């Protein structure tokens, strides 16, 4: 009997001990990934000295709102949050629309140089954007866009990753027969795009939207270069400003702001994690 079961089991089926070890190891990595989030909240909800207690304090306290009120004394946190919201939303709407449009063209149209142009689009993903920052700054100065959201929004209105992502999805999700049929009925190209293609590809558009929103929300370098006036700071710049303080660092205050700025993204991520993960890792999977 037992030999019968044995032979059914795969020869290298691991025993209980290796299974426990396996989960311990995997769990340890997961704890390391999550702990900083928890720690953020622990420091944010305890008094100033919490970050440097020995042994480290590991239990959330009750000081969160106290700490956070000191954030509001020093910086207009909610203004920065709204600024980030405006910029991220505008960029995202534009990216989703323009990338879907371009992805649709690359997926469903035939035109000269199509392949070359698409490879070119992909190639631009490997060009580090920071390298052009000086002339870009000069362009913005010439346009008088320094310290304006236009400088943050316009260059980001369409991107290569989005085109790539939408093209891949549209290629398989939108059937060419549908488009043909639409043409037969006399529909214009844009009309077919809008009425036939878009309803089918909304999941991919939503994923692109979430990813793009997070990227713009988290951006630091370019806003740092073009935003001068405190009132225009995005949330990342506002956070960084809290950290440059000569008279001792108030970590409870800093962490409460960091936590408040991270929480919205964390919630969005946890709600849509499957989409976000598949979107963010698709570049590698498809290439």
């Amino acid at each position, binding site marked *: 009997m037992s030999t019968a079961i044995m032979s059914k089991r795969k020869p290298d089926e691991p025993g209980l001990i290796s299974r426990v070890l*396996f989960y311990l190891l995997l769990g340890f990595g*997961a704890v390391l990934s999550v702990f900083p989030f928890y*720690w953020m909240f622990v*420091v944010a909800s305890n008094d100033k000295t919490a970050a440097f207690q020995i042994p480290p304090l590991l239990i959330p306290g009750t000081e969160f709102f106290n700490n956070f009120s000191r954030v509001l004394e020093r910086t207009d946190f909610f203004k920065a949050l709204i600024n980030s919201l405006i910029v991220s939303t505008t960029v995202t709407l534009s990216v989703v629309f323009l990338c879907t449009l371009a992805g649709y063209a690359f997926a469903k149209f035939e035109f000269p140089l199509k392949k070359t142009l698409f490879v070119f689009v992909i190639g631009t993903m490997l060009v580090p*954007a920071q390298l052009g920052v000086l002339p870009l700054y000069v362009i913005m100065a010439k346009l008088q866009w320094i310290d304006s959201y236009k400088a943050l929004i316009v260059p980001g209105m369409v991107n290569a990753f989005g085109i790539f992502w939408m093209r891949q999805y549209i290629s398989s999700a939108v059937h060419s027969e549908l488009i043909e049929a639409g043409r037969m009925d006399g529909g214009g190209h*844009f009309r077919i795009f809008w009425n036939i293609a878009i309803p089918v590809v909304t999941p991919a558009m939503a994923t692109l939207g979430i990813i793009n929103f997070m990227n713009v929300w988290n951006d630091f370098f370019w806003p740092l270069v073009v935003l001068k006036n405190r009132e225009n700071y995005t949330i990342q710049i506002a956070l960084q400003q809290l950290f440059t303080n000569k008279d001792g660092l108030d970590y409870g205050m800093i962490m409460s702001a960091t936590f408040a700025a*991270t929480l919205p993204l964390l919630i969005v991520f946890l709600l849509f994690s499957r989409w976000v993960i598949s979107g963010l890792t698709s570049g590698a999977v498809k290439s």
Partner: protein
Amino acid sequence: MAEPAAAATTSPNMAKRSLLSERGRSRLTAYLFISPFFILFAIFGLYPILFTIYLSFYKWDALGPMKYVGFRNYELITTDPTFWISFSNTLIMGLMGTLPQVIVALFVAVMLNSALNKYKNIFRILYFMPNITSIVAVTLVFSTMFGNNGMINWLLTSTGLDSVPFNSGWWGVKIAISTMVMWRWMGYNAIIFLSGLQSIPTDIYEASRIDGANRRQQMLFITLPLLRPFILFVTLVSTIGALQLFTEPYVFLGQSGTGSTRQEGVTMVTYLYNEAFKNGFFGTAAATAVLLLIATILFSLLNMIISSRMGGESGGKKA
């Protein structure tokens, strides 16, 4: 009814409608649909990079007239010790942040993919979480841990080791910054490797098992070779990212207002940023950008050469 309305939405070529064939019209539409990317890229992507190369031969403060100086900017930065420190810092931190991370990510991916793992989705989410945090937030959180009396030093001293000055020591700063990079990207790369692993058909493993291959042999002769494109992608992207390192050192060393050119953590992009936006030397900053571009191309090529060399059965080396 549909005819005129549709024509109106495709408006720019409406007038030519009768002149264009169906094929011509659809080509024109396609170009129109993809044009926003090319227009924006030309203005805000390509032109700035070309202009950077041009600018690197001029002396300029972004306001007054430009003055041609030949290779003088390159001379200036290559004789500036800080530039070379920024260069070596970038390479050291790139190596410290990328190499262990890729190896660990590979192990994590194999574990996540293992048949033993009954909670794939939960672990995937947990491991991925760090990547959604902003770099500023990551840096701030780790700054509290890497303080002189912070948690990491407590861990070190309580295990009998010496504490490390993470925010001022030559290696301390680099370790702290590399840790931040690793934390934010390890899970992301593990998930990429995981999707690579899932793309390997299971019957290959079945077949090799019948041929008597053990787990180690399967790993060396099946998994790693088939994972090569993913390893190449991850190392390539990580390398390019590592050369662009800016936010972590800028924020981490920006505390207490000492500025971000502290030698322990100055990187090439920090150097560039300071030359341009603190000192107003756009020419030398542009020269730095050009050297960084060259370094990026060289390291990308190196990456591809190494990974094409580690072909077939010698796929055991992960770097």
